[in-house]
Structures are given as structure tokens and as C-alpha cells.
């Protein structure tokens, strides 16, 4: 019985992989396609025919794949950004940005929602970690002299992304609406109030009032989950695009 079952299995696989529907889904170079083999042509197709992978060129300089050169810091920053997006969307299902509900929603999330505490922890630690990896990525790029022509402008984009990362983290800091959040943000925004000439106006716009309250919470929530990520994604796209336009990764030293 065994050989017969096996042949029926392969027959089924053959017919599925040969079908029009299957081949319309998996483009040439996909490992799921019939007759995939490890050839230079298929290696190229894997990159060219994938919406995600084609951020990369088909080939890169040999030194660029050494972990000791980049320490994966830029890639990890982007990966943490994705991870934060995914966990953040999960948290959004259980959170209302009002001073009456915010804290108790977080509390309920931690105590009554399956994996709620875990996902919140991951979101928090990934956020701190992302500030760190972005910062270290900047240091790595500087020490390799990778900001030199033709990559000057991409460095500028990178500095903007660093400030956006800080903004993302800082706007998220208020949302749990506990004593830590309230007073950390109070200290932070008081500093911005000292901006010359229009300092108090800046502070008023940021807080949505004279003191931190429900209006601030809503404002920072929208900034945190929509506005700043939106701007960040645009700058990320330019950043990645420029890496390739400027001739790929820098080096070797």
C-alpha cells in the first residue's frame, strides 16, 4: 500500500504544481515552483520576482555580506520597525486614548487578554532596542566613512530617521498614562517650551493645551500610530532606494 500511496501523493503534487493557478501565484524562481533548482538563473529570479526581496539587488559585493562589516544594524533597525508595527497593531485593538480609559485599558490588556502582557513587553523592549540599533547603525556608518560622496545625502536622511525614531519612541511613552509616562513627558515637553521666540506656542501645539491631559493623549496617539510612522516609512523608502542608487553598500575599507 505504501508505494501506491506515495505515487498518488507525488501525482497530486505534480498536478497541483503544474496547474495554471499555482503558476500564476508563484513566479519563476520561487522554491514552490515545479522543477526549482539551485542555478544562477533561479538565484537571480528569487530576488527579482519577490516584492520584498527586490529591495536588494540580485548581487552584492562580497564584503557586504560579512556580518562583521555591518553587524546587521541597519537591517535589524528595519526589522524592529516591522516588529513594532505588528505588535503595535495588536495593542491598538485594546486601547482607547483618553485619560479615563488609557491606563485601565493597559491594565486589562496585561491581566485579561491572551498574550497581552507578552506583546506589550515586546513592543516596549523592541522600541528601546530600536533607538539603540539606529544609534549604533549611525556610529557604524560613521566609522566606515560611508557618509562620504556619493552617500552624503543618504546620511542626512539617516539623521532625519534617527530623530523620527526618537519621536516615535517619545510619543509612545505617554500612552500607558501612568506616573512614569506623565512625568517623563512633562520633563521632555518642558524643555521644548524653552525654544526661542515661539517656545510656548510649540509646547501648546504639542500638548494640545497648557497642561498634559486627554487632548495631549489623543494628539500623541495619532502622532504615534499614524503620522510619525507614515513619515518614517517615506524616509525609509528614500533611504533604501538611495543605498542602491549610490552604488550599494560602501567599502571595503
Amino acid at each position: 500500500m505504501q508505494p501506491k500511496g506515495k505515487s498518488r501523493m507525488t501525482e497530486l503534487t505534480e498536478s497541483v504544481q503544474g496547474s495554471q493557478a499555482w503558476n500564476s501565484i508563484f513566479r519563476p524562481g520561487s522554491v514552490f515552483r515545479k522543477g526549482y533548482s539551485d542555478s544562477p538563473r533561479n538565484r537571480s529570479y528569487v530576488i527579482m520576482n519577490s516584492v520584498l526581496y527586490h529591495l536588494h539587488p540580485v548581487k552584492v559585493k562580497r564584503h557586504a555580506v560579512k556580518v562583521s562589516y555591518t553587524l546587521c544594524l541597519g537591517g535589524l533597525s528595519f526589522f524592529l520597525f516591522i516588529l513594532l508595527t505588528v505588535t503595535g497593531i495588536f495593542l491598538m485593538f485594546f486601547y482607547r486614548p483618553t485619560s479615563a480609559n488609557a491606563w485601565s485599558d493597559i491594565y486589562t490588556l496585561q491581566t485579561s487578554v491572551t498574550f497581552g502582557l507578552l506583546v506589550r513587553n515586546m513592543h516596549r523592549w523592541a522600541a528601546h532596542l530600536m533607538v539603540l540599533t539606529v544609534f549604533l547603525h549611525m556610529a557604524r556608518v560613521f566609522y566606515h566613512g560611508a557618509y562620504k560622496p556619493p552617500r552624503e545625502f543618504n546620511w542626512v536622511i539617516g539623521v532625519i530617521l534617527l530623530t523620527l525614531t526618537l519621536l516615535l519612541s517619545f510619543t509612545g511613552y505617554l500612552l500607558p498614562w501612568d506616573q512614569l509616562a506623565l512625568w517623563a513627558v512633562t520633563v521632555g515637553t518642558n524643555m521644548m517650551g524653552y525654544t526661542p521666540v515661539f517656545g510656548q506656542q510649540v509646547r501648546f501645539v504639542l500638548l494640545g493645551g497648557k497642561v498634559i491631559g486627554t487632548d495631549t493623549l489623543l494628539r500623541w496617539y495619532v502622532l504615534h500610530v499614524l503620522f510619525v510612522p507614515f513619515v518614517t516609512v517615506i524616509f525609509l523608502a528614500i533611504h533604501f532606494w538611495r543605498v542602491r542608487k549610490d552604488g550599494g553598500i560602501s567599502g571595503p575599507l
Partner: protein
Amino acid sequence: MTEIPEHLRKRAEAARKKAEEAKAGAGADDAAAAGSSDAGDTGAGATSAGDSKIPAHLLERSRAAKARKAGGAEASEGEGGGVATIAPPGGAVATAGPPPAATGPGGHTQRLLTVVKSGSIQDVKATPVDKVHVWPHLLAIELLASLVMTVFLLIFSIFVNAPLLELANPNSTPNPSKAPWYFLGLQELLTMFHPMVAGVTVPGMGIFLLILAPYMDKNPSNKPEDRKFAISLFTLFLMFWAVLVIVGSFFRGEGFNFNPPWSGGLFFDL
């Protein structure tokens, strides 16, 4: 086979016609071979000096060879095709001269058609770069790195909980009140400078200098040994912030007064 441009073809045709006329003029000569070599000579004479791109030393060598041949022309007949002949008028690109009527002593026909400088027709790429396929070499590393990061975060999150203090209360200020850790360097500066300097001027200047860095650093090298100044300066910059953040995070207690963590306890929440 590549197509020959129209103007080059016309030029070659003209040259051929001219050569044939010269040949007809020299019809009295008994040997056709000598005639053809004469034609080549006259053609060369017309162009050699001004508009030719042929290097001077090659011209010189060819002229010397011709003179040598002229000396022994009577003795050995039919040597004309055997020496380097300079291309007919318009020399830069290959043009067809008069077809050699005779072969050299060894039975070879050798003619120097033209000398083309490298890069004048085909752009030669700089040194080839050693490259590898992104799949699997880079994607495998990226996959591994993201997996390690995910596993680390997952395990860390299982064992360490994010802080959730009591409900926010605007009427009760905790002592000390600290900003998020990445702003603690600025809060540390606040103990030394006016808030405008610590909270706006210093960070503003920091970001401004970072943005300007690639435009101020004119040193083209990326080798660490050539960039000692830039590297020292940047390391100082990083250390400045690192020290401020660490002091602000771990060495500040109640009233944001100096408080070593080993004696006064830790006042720090992430």
C-alpha cells in the same frame, strides 16, 4: 557583424578610388606590386603629419622601414605588401586601403590598419567587482539575524515586564521625575545650563552638526588610518552623550541630585 557607419564607408570608398587612380597612373611600372606599394606611400605622405592620430614613434618606424625597403627595392622585388603600411587618409578608424596585390616573402600579408587608443571606442569598465548572489548569501544571514532578534525579544519579554506604575496623577510629582532614557543626557545638561541651552541649543546644534558632517569632512579616504581626526572627534561626540545618559540614568536620585547606585539605590525606569 556590426554595421559600418555611412561616412566611414564613403571615406573608404574614396580612398580606394584614389588608390586605383594612382595605380593606373603608375601603369608603366613593370611590377604591379611595386605600384601598389607606391600608392600606399603617396597616401601616407598626404596624411602623416597633421590629422593622423597614429603615435609619432610608429610613424617613424614605418618611415624607416619604407626607406630601408626603397634602398633594396631593385634587388628584391615584391616586398611592398610585407611591411607596415600606414592607413590611407582619415586614419583614426579602420578604413580599407587598396587590397594588397602581393604577399611578403613569408607568404604573409601584414598591414597596420590603424591604432585605436583604448577608451576611444569602447568604454572599458573599471576593475571588475567581486560579487555574490543575494540569495542565498545575504538573505540567509538576514533571516538568521531577524530570527535571533525575535527569539531574544520573546525570551526577554517573557521574563521582564514593561513597567506600568500607578495611574497618572498631575497633582503628585514623583521624585525624581525623569525623561525617557535617551533624553536623560539633555536632562543632565539641564543641571548645568539654562534650559534653553540644554533643551534646545545643544541638541539642535548636535543634529545640525551631524547633518553637516559629510559636507565638512573633505577627506576622501575611508581608511581608519587616514581619518584619525574625524574618528576621534566622533568618538568624543558619542562618549559625550553616552556619559551624560549614563550619569542621568543611574547616578541621579531624589531631587535629581548626584546619587551613586551602589549607595543610594537606583532611580531608573525604562
